């Protein structure tokens, strides 16, 4: 008497994936995206609510502390809600500077990281997939460029080539942005190359190109995304660093240049914290947001990192 016909298998409770279990609902990721959204919106909608011409030199009274500050320092003017975040020694209104400068910083980062990622994808894939001398050359070159202190070289370049536009600066930064993604992509491709589904694709005669794009790339998206945000962060950091040394565009206010002017005017020791404080705050918000997004994406990509607790 066969067992199969007599007794049906005991019903097993299947637990469907609850919507709320989706890996994309990662706390860190969402908080980061939220913060970034606030910053982007400020840049986009700001000009609608505030007069951005106040970011020009000599457009506002000098040395006003933010509106809520009580001060009897004779060097400062009378705070007013006309300039809620205060003004600085050149007559720029800080709120306007923030609204104009923040999107600049973001743009530089995104473009530089974007170019770096593109180059990185091409080189990383080639190195990982083709192996041999191609791999050797690319890998050696990438390792070499990573070791070179990028900021120092960028300083030299900027000192000679006084860059003015966001695009030019982004291009410069991209020079040093590509090794990271290249290494990452290469190691991912190497590990994926031997995975089952890739071998299957090869066996069915799919072309290298097709394998790369249809099989490997979709699985790498979370890594790519987290690498991208990490690179954006690094690029903004480099750009701000250069500007803080005075090597940025002079006609339009950016966050980094504002810090430079503040330092040059000894704003720290004069107590004019709002001059450098608000740009730094904005930048910290951007960096923290990007950091959270990067870590969140890491966790989304690699389930083992989620909630890993030491026993």
């Amino acid at each position: 008497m066969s067992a199969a016909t007599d007794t049906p298998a005991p019903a097993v409770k299947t637990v469907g994936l609850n919507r709320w279990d989706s890996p994309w609902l990662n706390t860190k990721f969402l908080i980061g995206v939220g913060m970034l959204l606030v910053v982007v919106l400020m840049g986009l909608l700001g000009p609608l609510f505030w007069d951005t011409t106040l970011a020009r030199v000599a457009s506002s009274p000098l040395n006003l502390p933010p509106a809520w500050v009580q001060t009897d320092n004779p060097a400062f003017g009378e705070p007013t809600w006309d300039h809620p975040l205060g003004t600085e020694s050149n007559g720029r209104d800080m709120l306007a500077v923030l609204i104009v400068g923040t999107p600049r910083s973001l743009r530089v980062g995104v473009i530089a990281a974007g170019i770096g990622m593109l180059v990185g994808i091409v080189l990383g894939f080639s190195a990982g997939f083709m192996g041999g001398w191609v791999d050797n050359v690319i890998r050696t070159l990438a390792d070499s460029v990573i070791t070179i202190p990028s900021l120092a070289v960028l300083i030299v370049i900027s000192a000679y080539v006084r860059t003015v536009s966001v695009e030019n600066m982004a291009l410069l930064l991209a020079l040093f942005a590509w090794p990271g993604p290249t290494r990452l992509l290469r190691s991912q491709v190497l590990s994926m190359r031997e995975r089952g589904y890739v071998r299957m694709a090869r066996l069915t005669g799919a072309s290298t190109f097709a394998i790369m794009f249809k099989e490997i790339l979709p699985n790498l998206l979370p890594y790519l995304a987290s690498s991208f945000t990490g690179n954006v962060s690094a690029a903004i950091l480099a750009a701000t660093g250069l500007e803080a040394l005075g090597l940025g565009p002079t006609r339009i206010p950016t966050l980094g240049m504002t810090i430079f002017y503040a330092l040059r005017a000894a704003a720290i020791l004069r107590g004019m914290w709002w001059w450098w404080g608000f740009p730094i705050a904005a930048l910290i918000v951007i960096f923290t947001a990007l950091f959270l997004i990067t870590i969140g994406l890491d966790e989304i990509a690699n389930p083992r990192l989620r909630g890993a607790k030491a026993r």
Partner: protein
Amino acid sequence: MAGLTPRYVLRRLGMFVLTVWLGATIIFIIPRLAPGDPVAAMVSRLMAQAGYIENSAEIIAAWRARFGLDGPIWVQYLAYLRNMVMLDMGYSLSSFPSQVDEMIADALPWTVGLLSVSTLLSFLIGNTIGALMGWPRVPAWIRALLPTTLTFTSIPFFMLGILLVYVFAYELRWFPPTGAYGRGLSPGWNWPFIKSLAQHGVLPVMSIVVTSMGFWALGMRGMIITNQGEDYMILAEAKGLRPSRVFLQYGIRNSILPQVTALALSLGGIAGGSTLVEYIFAYPGMGYLLYQGIVNTDYTLIQGIVFMLILGTATAVLILDLLLPILDPRISYER
């Protein structure tokens, strides 16, 4: 020393040479690509000051020869390479007649000191915090350290520096805002100098340490957690070894290696960041010198310093790479 094969050493040396050459070439090419001839501008500026400089004609002639302005670009390039290798960087334009290598030599110890102390501290503290996260019976306050250190990781070195100066130097006046040691003190092995040195050093070092700690902590914690599931950890426990031994010899020794590799990779970034920190604090190291060079458009100084930074970073990476096989006997097999 297992793993330190001649082949490995040669390869590492090759990377060193390649990196330095690549960096030097980049900073050679870029100025010459720029519109206008900065060299000619520099020379003419020197000539404009000629009224105040003795032997100006000879100096200018020496410059032309040094830069090989008369020769084709290849000659210039080779002369440049030769000079850099001999560490002969010529005269500073703005602080003439000081020699670039002298100025760098004065500034170098400060930078090396700042960098080594900060890197060491942040690596040690950060990795310790990260490792502690893997120790089973850790008090809650230590556990809270990790998120705390992480919050600072997204702040760039120099911005934290600005904040620290404002809070501790301006508001609280606990530490001096700038410089490496107080004016009027003579450098040497005397207590007032050393004390002043320490006082001036706290804030710059803190800027670097506090921000980079979190990075090491996070990485170490990840490694320790990953390693805890490894078979050799289970066997170590089955052997009845003391928990401390399991943690140190089996856990940490295996986790620290990727961290050292990460250290080598991050040195380039740390060098750049500390440049900015010196700038903020007017700490008389190479970073501050570089800033002065920028302000004065002192091209030879800038070139010399950046070359030294490249050389220094590449050397540090080389040393780390040579240390790795000693820590991990598998390394030379994997490369």
